[in-house]
């Protein structure tokens, strides 16, 4: 259950009641003071008292929409979401213009994982209060998150007509165009947002992302640097910043941003996921392990989380536990080649070369361009003394990745065992040359999935 959203819902319900226009409460003028007292009781968490008094009101006036709405907030607080939904629905059925109840329904549907229903309730709210920029923003944001890009753009473009757009909406419009692939209009909107608010971090991050997409790493880094100073206390912006920083190879900045985001919002699982990936890029396996363990605590069924935790444990040679997580992940990710590759590496570690061969074969069947799996397959054949097949697999790997030092090392090993000293030495010379260009990381190209995507 999404606790923060429930909290928000209750707060909004109360807020909607308290702030609702006098006309909405006119029918209940006699009981309005009583309802205010009940709202106060809810705020003091004196739920039993509040409910008793609401029941008294509803006994005499069962169609009191305000009372129904407040009772709905109590049910939501009690995690009785279906009951809450029924009460809010009755309230809006009785009073179609009851903005607060529509808003509560919108939030409730979000909690229940029904974003389409949320969207339709927010549209109702917007119909009742067309000039509410906050609701426009929420609706546009939700439409975008649901990939309903055209609707999002249409909504915001419509809002432009009566009055100039507020900055947050301009940024969402930029995001929507960016997501649609319309770089120039996205850029136009981000720049417009920056004209009005030069430190707007979301716009700066949007521009950084566009620059990354254009391969303009210099400008991407500049925008990220500007954004960095403006996002100190917004966990979501810190998270977005970190993901883009990772794309730009700014691992230290990404780590710092994610660390801060986690401090600000420790319940957010995806921060730990990105944190784990960032530490992996930094080749700090211990920290990566800790981050993925935190992620898995929060999302135990995430197959990608299981896969990455398994991978990190494999690199730390905690073989038995790595195997457990990877096998769990494989049950849900039967088409993910890396999992079978990692399981193959585990079989190799356990000297079960026949099993390793099966797993690597499966990995390359799923992804015929998976060079690392071909290298592992070649290395397995070397251990099985099947030199012709080792050579074929390793040469396939070299075709796929001519500059992979590990492939050339295994070829050197093969030629040395075939007593072809000259070719072995040639391969080793190449390995040394490639190694100095590659740096010290041993784990390159072992992760196929786009690391910047969110967890599944």
């Amino acid at each position, binding site marked *: 259950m999404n*606790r923060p959203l429930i*909290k*928000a819902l*209750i*707060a909004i319900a*109360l*807020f909607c009641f*308290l*702030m609702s226009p006098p006309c909405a409460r006119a029918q209940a003028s006699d009981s309005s003071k009583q309802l*205010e007292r009940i*709202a*106060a009781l*809810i*705020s*003091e*968490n004196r739920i039993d008292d509040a409910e008793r008094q609401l029941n008294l009101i509803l006994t005499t006036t069962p169609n009191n929409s305000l009372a129904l709405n407040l009772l709905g907030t109590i049910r939501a607080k009690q995690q009785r979401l279906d009951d809450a939904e029924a009460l809010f629905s009755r309230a809006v059925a009785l009073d179609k213009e009851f903005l607060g109840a529509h808003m509560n329904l919108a939030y409730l549907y979000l909690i229940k994982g029904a974003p389409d229903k949320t969207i339709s309730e927010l549209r109702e709210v917007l119909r009742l209060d067309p000039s509410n920029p906050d609701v426009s923003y929420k609706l546009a944001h939700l439409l975008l998150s649901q990939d309903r890009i055209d609707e999002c753009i249409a909504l915001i473009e419509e809002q432009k007509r009566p009055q100039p757009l507020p900055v947050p909406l301009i940024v969402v419009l930029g995001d929507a165009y960016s997501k649609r692939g319309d770089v120039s209009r996205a850029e136009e909107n981000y720049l417009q947002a920056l004209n009005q608010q030069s430190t707007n971090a979301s716009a700066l991050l949007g521009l950084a992302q566009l620059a990354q997409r254009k391969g303009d790493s210099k400008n991407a880094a500049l925008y990220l640097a500007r954004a960095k100073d403006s996002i100190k206390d917004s966990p979501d912006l810190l998270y977005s910043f970190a993901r883009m920083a990772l794309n730009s190879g700014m691992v230290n900045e990404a780590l710092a941003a994610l660390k801060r985001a986690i401090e600000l919002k420790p*319940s957010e699982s995806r921060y730990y996921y990105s944190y784990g990936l960032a530490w992996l890029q930094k080749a*700090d*396996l*211990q*920290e990566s392990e800790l981050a993925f363990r935190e992620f898995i605590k929060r999302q135990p069924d995430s197959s990608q989380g299981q896969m990455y935790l398994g991978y990190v444990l494999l690199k*730390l*040679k*905690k*073989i038995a536990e790595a195997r457990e997580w990877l096998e769990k992940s494989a049950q849900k990710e039967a088409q993910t080649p890396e999992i079978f590759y990692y399981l193959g590496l585990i079989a190799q*570690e356990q*000297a079960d070369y026949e099993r390793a061969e099966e797993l690597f074969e499966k990995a390359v069947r799923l992804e015929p361009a998976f060079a690392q799996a071909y290298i592992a397959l070649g*290395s397995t054949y070397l*251990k099985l*003394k099947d030199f012709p097949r080792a050579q074929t697999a390793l040469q396939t790997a070299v075709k796929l990745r001519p500059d992979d*030092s*590990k492939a*050339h*090392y*295994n070829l*050197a*090993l093969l030629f*040395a*065992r075939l007593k072809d000293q000259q070719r*072995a030495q040639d391969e*080793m010379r190449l*390995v040394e040359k490639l*190694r100095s260009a590659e740096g010290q990381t*041993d784990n390159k190209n072992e992760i196929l999935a786009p690391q910047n995507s969110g967890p599944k």
Partner: protein
Amino acid sequence: MKTRFSALLVLFAILNLPVRPQSDTPSGPSKVNAIFTEVSPRASGITWVHNNAHSAERYLPETVGAGCAYLDYDNDGWMDIYLVNSGASDFYIPPAPLENALYHNNHDGTFTDVTDKAAVAGGKFGMGVAAGDYDGDGWQDIYVTNYGGNILYRNNGNGTFTDVTDKAGVAASGWSTCAVWFDYDNDGKLDLFVSGFVFYDKSQKILCTDEIRSSSYYCVPRLFKPRQSFLFRNKGNGTFADVSQESGIASSPGKSFGAVATDVNNDGLMDLFVANDTMPNFLFVNQGGGKFEEMGLPAGVAYNENGKPRSGMGVDAFDYDGDGWQDLFVANIDKEFFSLYHNQKDLTFTDEPGEIAPATHLLSGWGLKFFDYDNDGDADLFLVNGHPDDMIEKRMPTVKYKEPPLLFENTGRSYKNVSAQSGSVFSRQLTGRGMAAGDFDNDGHIDVLIANNGDAPILLRNTVGVHNNWLGLQLIATKSNPAAVGAIITWQAGGVKRTRLKTGGGSYLSSHDPREVLGLGTASKIDQVEIRWPSGKLDKLTNLPINTYIKVVEGEGILKK
């Protein structure tokens, strides 16, 4: 309105109450049965302390030493102790002369410093030690490796030694690290392998500085050029011939730290496994006729699985799984993992460290030895650790400068980390370097000596208790090399037959008790012991006592007291 807003604020406050953190189940302290117990300097009398000559400039030799040895220099049947110290060099002038130390075993758990009387103080910037009877006179001699020329001390047989380095011709200029006595040509005399480290001297002015912190740290040896190792053939007249070139050893310059002599292909010729720092390891396979072929690459022991050389330091060899083939072990620096190379019986190896790998991921390993601490018949593994750079924690907080030693129990095909249950020393943070195994109290349980860099050595008494039986052998060669390196000992007890090859060297800069303790498990008698000597002679021994040491003379059997 005020009331309404107050209510709203209160509600927000309530709703944002932090979630109570889940507490982990508290775990109580685990019960520790000490297998190794520290003998304090006060109790042992070993008050000598290593001086690493630590300087602000951080010259590399400061962090490399030093080694230690168990040897019986006076043939009284009790293991004495030798410890190596730093000394004068081109980058260091000690305020007072520094000395190596020879401690005589008083047979009661105490030792007496006899360095000056024995005249084995060294005086150079010491690294390691290898004890061996090079002249076959029945008295163990001492070879000390140094930064700046090595020393051979000939045992005079009367408690004193004579420096015979120049006469013997084994000085091996430059910076030497470990030394191994073994008989590469099976002529019955002990030859000498000496590891060469890097080309280094103060005039190179290679210092490593952290610009951010404006401080020096110990340079990674990658910055220095490798140098050749040496092989000296014992001519049998008190002198040696430098056969480094003709044997093929000099063709592979390295940055060698550890070496062990063993027979990886069971051809009766001793091979050498040499660990190199930041370079591929060497496996010098003895081809006979005085030649070695370096086969580290095809054997799969030169690089890690990605083709990257590591920082090899300590090494050892043993047939840990009892399949009749010698396996190899090499300790590396942190994050490189230590390797347990399983012999595939065709001059190739596969790295199968099992539980050792995760346990050593953040450690840097130096002294190490396979030995049977509990006399159950198989070889366990003792590892001594410590990071070479005293500034490491500033750059890598997860890696520590001082590190604990580890003990692994042999479970048949792999190893289990039993450090946490084996004594408080395994939770001590040490600057471990050298490590020697030997039974200093003659109770049949092998003890350990740890040499710490810039600190006092640690003497560990094996207090595993009397659970298993044992038989100790002192091999006295008549035709084979005096150390009987290369002898194959087979023993049968309680229906279990075991075989052990007597290796030469192993660990880091250190030298071990030359006797062999055969673990019998719970068997109350030993059915038979066979010794196949390097000369080819076979001694079959029956009607043997247990829980005592015996002397076995090549071709003659048990020496009667």
